[in-house]
């Protein structure tokens, strides 16, 4: 019999790396923008648009909106649907599980389902 990595593991790992990349990009952009246009200038020189400081508008609100769009793409075009598999009876019921004997009442209840 051929053994290969479970598709859930494979796709989940790919999606985990992608989400890590989204986090790094969002963090880099937001922090860099806020540093150069928020932290660096004197507070008295900070500009606002519609009452919102520009560093907030372009450094936080804009990437936040972009991330919401990315989340939509991520959810509906990138993440793969995979079968999560059969449910093993509660680990309490598993013979090799630690701590519970086979004749426990919990085991009996589960096995009767």
């Amino acid at each position: 019999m051929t053994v290969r990595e479970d598709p859930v593991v494979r796709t989940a790992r790919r999606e985990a790396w992608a989400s890590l990349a989204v986090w790094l990009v969002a963090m880099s952009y937001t922090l860099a923008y806020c540093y150069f246009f928020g932290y660096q200038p004197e507070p008295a020189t900070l500009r606002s648009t519609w009452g919102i400081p520009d560093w907030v508008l372009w450094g936080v609100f804009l990437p936040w909106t972009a991330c919401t769009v990315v989340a939509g793409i991520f959810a509906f075009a990138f993440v793969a649907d995979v079968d999560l598999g059969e449910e093993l009876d509660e680990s309490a019921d598993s013979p090799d599980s630690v701590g519970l004997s086979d004749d426990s009442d919990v085991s009996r209840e589960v096995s009767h389902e």
Partner: protein
Amino acid sequence: MSESSGGAGTLAALLVFVAASVWLGTIAQRIVERGSFLRGYFLGNRGLGAWALALTATVQSGGTFMGFPSYVYSHGWSLALWIGSYMVVPITGFAMLGKRLAQLSRRTGAITLPDLFRERFASPALGSLSLGFVLLFMCFMMVAQFKAGAIVMKVAWPGSGALTLDESDGQLDYYYYLGLTIFALTVVGYTVIGGFLAAVWTDLFQSVMMLVGVMILLPLVVSAAGGLEHASVAAVEQTGQEFLSPRGYSADGRSFLPFGSAVSFFFVWVYAGMGSPAGMVRVMASKNTETIRKSIFLLAAYNMLIYLPLIVICICARAIIPDLHKTDEIIPRLALHTTSQLPGGSLLAGLILTAPFGAVMATVSSFLVVIASGLVRDLYQRLIRPQASIAEIKRLTYAAMVLIGVIAFVANINPVQYLQALVVFSGSGGAAAFVVPAAMAAYWRRATAAGTTAAMTLGAVTVLVLYTIGFVEATGFRPHLLLGIDPIVWGLGVSLISGIVVSLLTAPPPPELVARLFDQTEGQPAGTLA
């Protein structure tokens, strides 16, 4: 209705909300009774849909509607950057670990987080260790929430004068204790009745009410402030130019958010959400992968609609209620102030107040379930009486929840301070303890029980040590910022390095254990045991 306390309509709206939550608990109980008690009561028979998962497996809490607004009001626009990492929380929270945790919990039959670690690494000691950290970090946060619930109920009570302009009086009076009693009885009551599903359904209902509350409050507040631009100018006149700066305004002249802290908070919220035991359990309870991926988008939209308006609301608050000292009351005060002249305003205020009340109830109920499951399933059943009958387990579960509720009630007779600081501490500790071990469990075949134990212990201890140093050297509940960086970053770093090093220095895990949880044998459907 006055601006210092709610009217009959306000109280009625809140009581209807409470009754609806209890009713949802009784409905949940019927579902739980259909299957195995343990899996049903603690995991909802793994049947969570996308809406339930998205709007409940998050880090929204009393802090969202009490602590965070208070910070915005006090420190200004800086809070947009402070909370900014929430923009990626839906993606990282569900996509980094969600799918694998859901699968691993099915393959091992785990129904709690300690269960998962114990079975994944075949290590009872690791299960017990994770139980210890679950109890430590979640108890802190849960106890802190009771005060917020009591205050909201007090505010709603007609004649309580909770929001009098005189702020020198204490909050601890008859109405506070009445509010605390109603809050504790309600939340413990419906959680005992319906367990995990009750917590999830009421959480979902409450999350929707939070959104409704914010959406009602936003136009009312912006209009009352004369527009955001006017409010921002008024805020600067009251404080200073720092109110517009990412450093933030502080009355004592210190910088609220130095750049190092801004970097840290891109770790705090992302990894606190991912490492929350309550959140991990909900992912384990998701119905399928379609549920998980849809949750990513639902939560992203929800977060944007909650947090960005909350920032605007609390900036505008400066123009409406200047120089407020009890700043954690800003949302209740705004609700009463902006609706006092409207027809049906009392009822509307009650509707808005359900947002903070719901956030607190949701946090407490979900934590109650996780803490009780830890005590009963992972401690009593695993370590003390493995032969316990289901009837005994049921009785003990109910007793544990009531006991936890009583302890939280007693702790809040003289309530804790620093709600938001406790939220950050609890989230940081949980993240440092569980994120790296969970990632090792999910993706690294070579990870060993010893390596995971080291990652969990050293990550959590790093955070605890930095908070202890901060507590000793400063007044108040503040961590020591080593090199200006928050403890969570150090905790995650130490956890990662120790997990890798110790795993590589110890014997590899048994190949059959790894194969059982990572591989698929040709000809067998995914997810079945090899």
